[in-house]
């Protein structure tokens, strides 16, 4: 365990002066943060305050209006995009309903590959870890919304990425599944990972920093 921590201690996710635009308006401005190994940041705020937008900017899926996101690690080659070190769990599960859970997980394991800092676990074990080991042979479309969410989470385990970007990870989940997720997130942090999550429910993480988003920086005072 100590060896792992030492190996990854040089990791840093850095965001500088980020602002992003949705349509005409700036939805947030000048957000900066630095996350090192084992640190987490929880985004809170009401609907439409820009939590998801910020996560998509960090994941490299949206171009920020100003600022930059950078990733530094000992194993990182120069010019590596921050997105390559990230897992992104969005609102949609990124799994094919026609394929079985095993095929989905095996595909992502193969396609995503591991970064140099760690290893993913086989699909069967990942499904066990989210508490659904027995139904890995079923087509993904047959599962309930909560089960689908759990399996989407299992995707984070099959390939290793130091940074987890989670957008409402606990949507559609029951209390026990929330507990399972919290456990997995804590384990990831304990082994030197970084977690960036947007959520309405408290995830129960100690030492998590919180960033409260207010939304529409430019037009908050506007009157209709």
């Amino acid at each position, binding site marked *: 365990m100590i060896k792992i921590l030492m190996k990854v201690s040089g990791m840093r996710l850095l965001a500088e002066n980020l602002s992003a635009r949705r349509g005409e308006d700036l939805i947030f401005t000048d957000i900066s943060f630095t996350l090192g190994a084992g640190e987490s940041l929880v985004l809170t705020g009401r609907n439409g305050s820009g939590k998801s937008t910020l996560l*998509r900017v960090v*994941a*490299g*899926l*949206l*171009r920020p209006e100003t600022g930059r996101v950078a990733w530094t690690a000992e194993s990182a080659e120069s010019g*590596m995009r921050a*997105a*390559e070190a*990230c897992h*992104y769990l*969005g*609102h*949609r*599960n*990124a*799994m*094919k*309903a*026609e*394929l079985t859970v095993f*095929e989905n997980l*095996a*595909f*992502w394991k*193969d*396609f*995503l*590959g591991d970064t140099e800092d760690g290893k993913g676990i086989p699909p069967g074990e990942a499904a066990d870890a989210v508490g659904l080991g027995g139904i890995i042979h079923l087509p993904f479309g047959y599962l309930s919304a909560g089960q689908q969410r759990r399996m989407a989470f299992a995707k984070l385990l099959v390939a290793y990425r130091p940074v987890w970007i989670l957008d409402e990870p606990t949507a559609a989940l029951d209390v026990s599944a929330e507990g399972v997720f919290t456990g997995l997130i804590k384990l990831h942090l304990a082994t030197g990972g970084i977690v960036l999550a947007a959520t309405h429910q408290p995830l129960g993480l100690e030492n998590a920093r919180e960033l409260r988003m207010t939304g529409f920086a430019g037009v908050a005072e506007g009157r209709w």
Partner: protein
Amino acid sequence: MTALLLRDLKLSVRAGGGALIGVLFFMTVVAVIPFGVGPDLNLLSRIGPAIVWIGALLSALLGLDRLFQTEREDGSLDLLLMQEHPLVLTVLVKCLAHWLGNGLPLVIASPLLGLFMNMDEVAIGATMLTLLVGTPALTFIGAVGAAVAVALPRGGLLVSILVLPLAIPVLIFGVSASYAAVEDPAPFLPPFLILVAITMFFAVLGPLGAALALRNAGD
């Protein structure tokens, strides 16, 4: 990358995949022509290669809009965009998988449809060969249209319209090479080689354009 190829192939033959739909549409288009034109065997065999090519072109356009749209709808596209692999390569592999799943069945079905059109063996062989060489170009061209229209709901017709002007040269040289194989004075090789060149040209340009469009489609 092999994983992506295999997954897309699996998806194309599972329920909701486009492989069978394309072939059925191809058969429908070509099979109604003899009924519409009438039992004039000489006329049928003369227009045969053109009809088979038009049918193949339309069926190839049919499933193209789903190339990236399904990925976007379930969120997989985000993950494909984030990876270390060059996006161009990802798009190229998706195109290859799409062609193997949707284009190749058309090529395999074409000799049967050639019989409907009273084409002789040489004409059938030439049409099949030109389709084999030409349909990949349709997929590569279509990938650009599919990438541009990825965020649009019901972008299917738009994709076809965007792509059609670029697909016309493929049709022209495909059909003229097929005719050249049957009619004596016209040489077969020049139009055939131009068709090969078009396919290779778009095999480079198509994935590049599609990757660029996907990167900028972010929302």
